[in-house]
């Protein structure tokens, strides 16, 4: 009798989980495996797909330096963006966490706002600032510093700028969460034992905030390296990142087998970063930021 009740209780979580798990299986797990299969198919000259086991896409993707260079370029942009976000985000997170001012809640609320504003709007907003008829050019012309408007947009620097603008809130929030969890007595103890404020920061606060810094960096790097929107809106013709190759293959050229192989490459590279992170630090840190 007791066993039967136990058995009944065990079935309930599975009933509750089944709709979500079915969705994940049908809409994510199986489709991802299917893309692996698809990458071995071939697109023929007529535009039809030839089902089979062809290595052509993989040979092209793995041996053509064109793809390797763009992959390396993408990772470089990801790293630059992440480092800039960390440098800019840390002081802000530190200020929100340790400020004594009463408007702290307001600062936190403001920090959450960008998450509610569409990525496309935040990206295109830079056109109003740096564009030919944007704020900076208007100011420069009004002050008589330049006669003709300067084209500041559509290059690598503006892609990085757009990405920083998109990803900075993730960084600040994650660092803030881990700073907020530090016992203030630790810092006070370090000070009373004779360390300078900077030493106390370097020896106590900074090491304790590293989990948040790492979580923020992971998010910035993975999200930044996987985007194709920012290069399309703020980059020039030569500033495409790896996800742009996928977009072009799937949407423009309709070469789905090639697009599949490229997608797997991106998934493996960024997945490896996530796994590496999870090996040493827990992914749980990231959900802390959301809760």
């Amino acid at each position, binding site marked *: 009798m007791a066993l039967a009740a136990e058995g009944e209780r065990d079935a309930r979580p599975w009933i509750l989980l089944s709709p979500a798990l079915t969705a994940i299986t049908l809409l994510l797990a199986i489709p991802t495996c299917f893309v692996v299969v698809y990458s071995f198919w071939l697109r023929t000259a007529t535009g039809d797909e030839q089902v089979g086991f062809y290595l052509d896409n993989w040979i092209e993707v793995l041996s053509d330096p064109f793809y390797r260079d763009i992959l390396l370029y993408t990772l470089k942009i990801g790293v630059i963006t992440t480092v800039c976000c960390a440098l800019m985000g840390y002081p*802000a997170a530190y200020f929100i966490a340790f400020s004594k001012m009463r408007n702290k809640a307001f600062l936190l609320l403001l920090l959450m706002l960008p998450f509610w504003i569409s990525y496309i709007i935040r990206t295109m907003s830079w056109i109003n600032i740096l564009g030919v008829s944007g704020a900076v050019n208007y100011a420069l012309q009004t002050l008589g510093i330049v006669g003709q408007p300067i084209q500041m947009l559509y290059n690598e620097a503006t892609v990085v700028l757009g990405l920083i603008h998109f990803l900075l809130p993730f960084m600040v929030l994650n660092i803030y969460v881990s700073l907020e969890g530090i016992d203030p007595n630790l810092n006070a103890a370090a000070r009373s034992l004779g360390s300078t404020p900077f030493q106390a920061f370097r020896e106590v606060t900074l090491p304790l905030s590293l989990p948040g810094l790492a979580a923020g960096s992971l998010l910035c790097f993975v999200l930044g390296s996987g985007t194709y929107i920012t290069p399309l809106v703020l980059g020039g013709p030569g500033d495409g990142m790896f996800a742009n190759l996928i977009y072009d293959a799937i949407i423009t050229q309709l070469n789905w087998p090639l697009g599949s192989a490229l997608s797997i490459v991106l998934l493996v590279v960024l997945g490896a970063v996530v796994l590496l992170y999870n090996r040493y630090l827990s992914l749980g840190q990231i959900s802390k930021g959301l809760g």
Partner: protein
Amino acid sequence: MTGWSFIRLATILVYLFMFAPVAVVMLLAFNASQFGSFPMTGLSLRWFVELAQNDAIVRAFQTSMVLGALTSVISTTLGVTASLAMVRYDFPGKNLLNTALIAPILVPEVVLAVSLLLFLQFLSMPKNFVLLLLGHVIFTLPFVVLVVQARLVGIKKEYEEAAQSLGASPIQTFFQVTLPLLMPAVAAGMLFAFTISFDDITGTLFWKPPGVETVPTQIFAMLRNSISPEINALGTVMIIITVALPLTGAGIARWLASRSGG
């Protein structure tokens, strides 16, 4: 002390960096000049009027609203049931399943978009609204799960146990005790899912059928053709919807809480 003033200055600059461009979008939306760019020649609502008269934009708006509403209902239903199982029960493989539930945000969104598109097209499903909806549901699900789980942990199990010990059936307990306690989490999940769906562009560009636009893809198309002056007004409307909605929700929740508390 100089260290602290440096940190304060850096914080001010970071906040300026985050908000100035968005503020400029909202400012220029009210610009009376016929080009919609600097200089500001005066305040006017003309771009909002033009938005309302632009059929393509109105249609994109309706698509986004319907898509966001359906996504939030489906995604929250899936997310709340799954979170209940995760928070309330212990069972083998729980950690693995928890990772599976948030897997859609661990996979780069481009890859998620490509997989779903290719798989459903292989099953001969044409690019249509259902594909868009399924994509948005799977993409928003992890966010709902994370938000709802965080809230659920704070609801004591004892209330449910008390109800059951007083003779309520599990179904009665759910609808009369658990669900009312859960409502803030459900509302938060729905708002979150709606906002993410309403704002999404990365997956939507892959999934949308030709000729169908959501507000973000409409903005994207307008950017690519030529920078039209209406774009800032459209951006402003979007910001107001996705920012004012959760703020109002939070305000109402606080008001309800203070009323029932006092």
